[in-house]
């Protein structure tokens, strides 16, 4: 049955609401004005120039990019073997371990951030690289495990078994057959983990300090205190990074499948 006009209109309203913030951020980021005024008084790239010449924000951007790369790497390195075990092997306690490896995603990031502050502050690990990598890994590792487990499960078992028949050891078969076939899933998982860390705000707010801060935290603080289009240029930068990751993941494995709870 083709959708009627009421459904079409209601769906368009829904999509408008979903798209509106990103569209407005894009428009305002090129504003020539001094405030978040719509319509913008004129077109200019001055706020992007202001962003690029803002030393503090550029340091935060560099920190966030490095942190996200390390977190994605750690998440894949720890997550891929775990995902292989969960997807391919049978052992006592499998369900319990699978639940444990997904558990941090069920915890509100506010509570996780508070818990990490209480644990890392006394150890002098708050506002340090190891502390932030560990904190961001709590969101990234479960993501990597989930996506990689789906990717490994999608590789037909027959191929691995054929390799065994031909004399390959289990390790060799996993390394030479299953892993390469699951590679698109691994790249998708790495990209999503990068983004999860790059965008992470709430946990970081508990853990950053004057010595080490991240871009989303600086954007949050900027938006809390001032409302000039610099913050829109900053937001646009984050949206573009997110968009790049979304398109990459969509190409590789399909976005809904990667995020789906099924």
């Amino acid at each position, binding site marked *: 049955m083709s959708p009627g006009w009421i459904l079409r209109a209601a769906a368009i309203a829904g999509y408008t*609401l979903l798209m509106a913030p990103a569209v407005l951020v894009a428009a305002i980021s090129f504003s020539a004005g001094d405030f978040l005024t*719509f*319509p913008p008084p004129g077109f200019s790239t001055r706020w992007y120039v202001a962003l690029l010449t803002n030393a503090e924000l550029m340091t935060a951007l560099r920190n966030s990019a490095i942190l996200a790369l390390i977190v994605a790497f750690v998440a894949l390195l720890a997550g891929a073997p775990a995902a292989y075990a969960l997807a391919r092997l049978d052992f006592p306690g499998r369900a319990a*371990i699978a639940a444990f*490896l997904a558990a941090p995603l069920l915890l509100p990031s506010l509570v996780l951030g508070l818990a990490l502050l209480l644990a890392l502050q006394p150890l002098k690990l708050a506002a340090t690289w190891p502390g932030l990598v560990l904190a961001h890994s709590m969101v990234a590792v479960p993501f990597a495990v989930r996506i990689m487990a789906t990717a490994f499960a999608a590789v037909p078992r027959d191929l691995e078994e054929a390799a065994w028949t031909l004399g390959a050891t289990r390790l060799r078969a996993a390394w030479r057959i299953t892993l390469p076939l699951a590679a698109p899933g691994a790249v998708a998982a790495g990209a999503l983990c990068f983004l999860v860390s790059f965008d992470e705000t709430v946990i970081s707010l508990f853990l950053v300090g004057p010595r080490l801060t991240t871009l989303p935290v600086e*954007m949050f603080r900027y938006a809390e205190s001032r409302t000039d289009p610099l913050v829109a240029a900053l937001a646009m930068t984050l949206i573009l990074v997110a968009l790049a990751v979304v398109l990459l993941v*969509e190409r590789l494995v399909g976005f809904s499948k990667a995020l789906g709870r099924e």
Partner: protein
Amino acid sequence: MIAYLLLLPAVAILAAGFLYPVALLARISLNRTTDLGAMEEALSLDTFAKVAGDEFTWELAANTATLAAGSALAATALALPVALLIRAAPARWRGVLSLMAIAPLLISGTARVVGWMAILGDRGLINAALLWLGLASDPVRLINNWTGVRIGLTESLMPYACLVLIAGLGRLDTRLEEAAATLGATRSRTFLRITLPLALPALLAAFLLTFVLGVSAFITPRLMGGGRVFVVATEIFDLALQTVDWPAAAAMAMLLLGALILAMLLRSVVARRTA
């Protein structure tokens, strides 16, 4: 054996960064705060009693529950037509339409708040339109208050509702609606008597998920509320980082977790009932 070896790194990282901190959070909620504001080792429920005995806590809880329920309801209602359209769309459009509905999930919450500031602010899109149309002579306050928080939170919860509804509605048999139409039912009657009852379990699941997420939302209430909107999440943040009363922050976080676990149990009961 090899399985446990493969699992070890991931389990070890989560034990250090999740299990230990959450256990410590529970432990610290049993500590006390002295009159001077220092933390005192203890094994008592004094801090819980102090938090639960404070009228402000209950005001915050009521604020939070009302906000989350309203925004979750609105997000679910707005996601329904989106999910129905995707279900009815030709297969080749479904992927793009789903992507457009779910992708905002990955846009930083702060970036979206900046967009809402440009829409709802005193010099924003809506006020510009209202003034231009002559519908208002002064800007209407749509931001830095509860209105702004409700709108922002609704939008930030919508992709989650879409995710649940797209999956849930995709499983429903479209032939039932076609049969109703063939038998002479109007569109609205088919929707009310066939589609809506069939979609009810998915709608309930979407509402409960977005409610749980709304209860613990922090960025939107903080930024869209402009410091004038107080919910449980903003209070936990302030207790931890401004007042630096760790036991109180931990106790309130434990109470929030308890409430969320209750809501999730309810969700699994609902899921089992309707499965």
